[in-house]
């Protein structure tokens, strides 16, 4: 079992991050090295400033507000929570002063960020079981949502255990030691990480997160990088 834990927590993490970074960059380079479209692809009437409006379209999804307000609320909750979650993970490496503008205990959000994300993901997933979204979806869409749901669920479990159920054996400091050791290429697994009661949560969380990262560059998740340039095309 220890070997399995080790493989998931150390080499697989390195492989996942390598695939994520190299894959994403390679995909972006491939797309943006293609020649530009010879004609404008914008929608009229046009408004200035185009860059600012493209940012607005990308991050606030105004067209969704108009058509599907409930879906928009879930999308915004999801994406904002995702951002908080990324910040939370960065804080597991190091204490950043910028993030502590509003003082908080690591991990961010008192457990609610993970809860919101789980609910949103369930909503997105169940939505796709319904026509016409079912006919539009391909397996990739379900796999990604399930994968992300599992990642978030097991990740949040660790947070919830500490926050809501007073579980003390696995703390932010233990994660920090583990993550920093990975970062400095001197991987070290403390006994808190591998043998405490909630280790399996941690291992499963990392396992699903690894799969998610490895799939990222090859999937529709690239929309996180491609949305802005596409919205710029539409704004002209």
């Amino acid at each position, binding site marked *: 079992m220890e070997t399995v834990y080790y493989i998931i927590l150390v080499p697989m993490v390195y492989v996942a991050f390598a695939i994520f970074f190299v894959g994403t960059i390679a995909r972006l380079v491939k797309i943006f090295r293609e020649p530009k479209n010879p*004609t404008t692809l914008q*929608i009229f009437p*046009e408004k200035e400033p185009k860059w600012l409006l493209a940012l607005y379209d990308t991050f606030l999804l105004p*067209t969704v507000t108009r058509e599907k307000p409930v*879906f928009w609320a879930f999308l915004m909750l999801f994406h904002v929570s995702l951002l908080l979650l990324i910040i939370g993970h960065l804080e597991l490496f190091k204490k950043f002063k910028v993030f502590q503008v509003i003082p908080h205990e690591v991990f961010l959000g008192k457990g609610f960020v993970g809860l919101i994300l789980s609910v949103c993901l369930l909503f997105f997933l169940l939505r796709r079981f319904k026509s016409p979204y079912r006919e*539009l979806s*391909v397996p990739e869409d379900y796999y990604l949502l399930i994968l992300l749901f599992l990642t978030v669920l097991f990740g949040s479990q660790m947070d919830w255990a500490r926050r809501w159920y007073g579980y003390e054996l696995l703390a932010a400091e233990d994660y920090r030691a583990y993550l920093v050791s990975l970062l400095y290429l001197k991987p070290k697994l403390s006994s808190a990480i591998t043998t405490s009661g909630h280790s399996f949560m941690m291992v499963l969380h990392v396992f699903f997160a690894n799969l998610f990262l490895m799939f990222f560059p090859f999937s529709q998740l690239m929309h996180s990088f491609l949305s802005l340039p596409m*919205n710029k*095309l539409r704004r002209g």
Partner: protein
Amino acid sequence: MDEKTRDDLLKLFRSKLNEAMRLYLETCTRCGICVEACHAYASMGQVRYIAAYRHEIVRRIYKKYFKARGKAWPSVGESKELNEMALRELYDAAYSCTGCRRCMVYCPFGIDTQMLMSIAKLLLVGAHAEPEILTMLADMSIERGRSLDLFKESFLTGIKNLEAEVVKKWRMEAGGTAIPVDVEGADLLYVALAGAHSIIPAAVVFNAAKERWTLSFFEAVNFGAFVGDPTRTQLILERIVNEAKRLKVKEVCICECGTAYRVMKQLSGKQPFEVSSITEAHARYLREGRIQLDKSKLKDPVTYHDPCQLARNAGVIEQPRFVLSQLTDDFREMAPDVRYNWCCGGGGGLVALGEDNLDFRMKSVKVKVDQVKQTGAKILATACENCHTQLSDLNKHYNMGVEVRFLSSMVADALVQ
């Protein structure tokens, strides 16, 4: 489908892959926000008319042949082989899409369905499975450009016969030519369609505004664009560009044809002349006081259908409204606004297919009919040949009880002498 044919088709597919096309192919999350965007889905409720569904028909072939995933894990994105059946699906997707780009307004990323359908259309051309009539018409246009001398005489005779009617509507000063053709050094080259309705009212207004104009030998319509063949599109376009350069005009004015205008405006590149639509020219004449209109000519309430290629896709939005404000005091705007305006259902070459797809053309735009009815207008004006034909068909089919009119002819009829 044999190996060689498929390879040739995939080469055509590859030729369409530029930066924007890659973005459109890579990014869809199939979120379904575009569901209600397409008039065909909104009118008929069939999933195959949803924009994302149409995209996916092209995208599945892309995943199969242009992404490693197509080989490593084909089922994850349901990638699909390019074969006879796939061609039929591509046909259904492309020739039920008018390229109105209404769905592009809905999409959180702004995926351009017309662009993706242009891949489908090009593959169909490559497989000789496109609607033959469109290619035939495109080839006729190209041929006319190549051997103009053969057509010149009959064209000039035809034009001469129209002059009397132009003069009837606007008396010229002695010695003036009612329809000037082939005038070097004219200010404006007017590119019309084959048909008196596209030439006479335009000529009347140009003469009234004392424009130094000349009529093009060629018709504006670009069947190459309808059939989605970039080479033919370019050849048809070049005939006019060359004529404009030869006559050293300052402006090329395109008749009421949305696609012709958009192709000329956006695809002709940097040229020594400006490109305008006839509606823009009319608005300019009115603003400069070169023509005046009599509002008493129109008694009934008027509404205006924005041709997608002219308005949402090329920005001619304010000008027709200004012209209408000079024509009537009872102009009724359609709701929702121009970005969300429903397509008439005739674009993308669909009208040119005539009776073949009449049933679909009528059923697929029930929403447009309702939109027009809501205004309570009796006159339905528009500034595009295809829209005019389609709206007239709808008027008959649904007993809408409106009069469908070209904006240019409304201007010509209301001129103050």
